[in-house]
């Protein structure tokens, strides 16, 4: 088990390091720069989508989707961060508590 733990950790650190080791002048090229700026937007948006609608390899609509919709509404009204998060948690927890969604 120690093999899996340590090899896994070493690889994950190496991946984090890899991105920081790319020389600055490579990233200065306008096309490369634009890609690097857009990458986190694509990855984080995809992550939010998967966290909202996927359970392992299955696409599901459950309490998370209405919770995210409520959070989006809160964002549109420029609510502070903590309020957005609490609204999402309360929506999902409430729907589950009353058995309206899983």
């Amino acid at each position, binding site marked *: 088990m120690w093999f899996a733990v340590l090899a896994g950790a070493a690889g994950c650190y190496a991946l984090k390091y890899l991105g920081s080791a790319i020389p600055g002048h490579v990233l200065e090229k306008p096309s490369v720069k634009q890609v690097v700026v857009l990458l986190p937007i694509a990855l984080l948006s995809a992550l939010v989508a998967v966290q909202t609608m996927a359970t392992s390899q299955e696409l599901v609509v459950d309490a998370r989707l209405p919770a995210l919709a409520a959070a989006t509404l809160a964002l549109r009204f420029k609510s502070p961060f903590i309020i957005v*998060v609490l609204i999402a948690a309360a929506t999902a927890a409430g729907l589950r508590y009353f058995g309206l969604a899983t």
Partner: protein
Amino acid sequence: MESTATNWLTVRKEIVGKAISIGVAVAMYGVSFGALGTTTGLTIPQTMALSLLMFTGASQFTLVSTLASGGTALTAVTASWLMGTRNAAYSMRMTPILKIKGPGRLVAVQLTIDETTAMGLAQDETAFEGRASRLAFWATGLSVYLLWNLATFIGAISVSAIGDPKAFGLDAAIAAGLFALVWPQIKSRIEVSVALGGALIALALTPFVSPGVPVLAAALVAVILGWVTGRRLS
């Protein structure tokens, strides 16, 4: 100058508050992770080593659950690497913003994960000469690192006494928290296209490929659209 200083205090307070709330939300999952680790046959030191050394939640859960479902050590390790690949893109983006040299960079690298990147990028990159972005990254990194590890330890020794995080809506809270951090980054038409395109690709691929791959595949949208529009800018 007076007003800039006051401004900075307000901004600083707001950033630190956000960083703490992210840490607390993430910690609830840390307890689950700790409990999962020790119930699936890892020792307490092994479970702790994952949170301390790997420190990237998705990879940690993947490694442990692959082992738990009877996967070999090699499969589990490879799956955790796959999950951690997106961190390479994050550190590529964050390194020029953080502007640090020497050993501090090795620490920054370890703290480069979804939450810290999203927080760092949610600030205006030019605000207070980049201080806002840097504080957001470091404060979130510190808060998440400490609370995640503390929570892992509690979960590992007590084996899940706190119940299902889903009952508190924490899964939705984490998704909404990340979304709130991505939200200010999506302004131009190209950014909207990248965000929507990335989300759609990930969802479309979810049933067909193993977890982790759908999110990575979303990078393609950024690469293609970034390359095309970047060339036009030059």
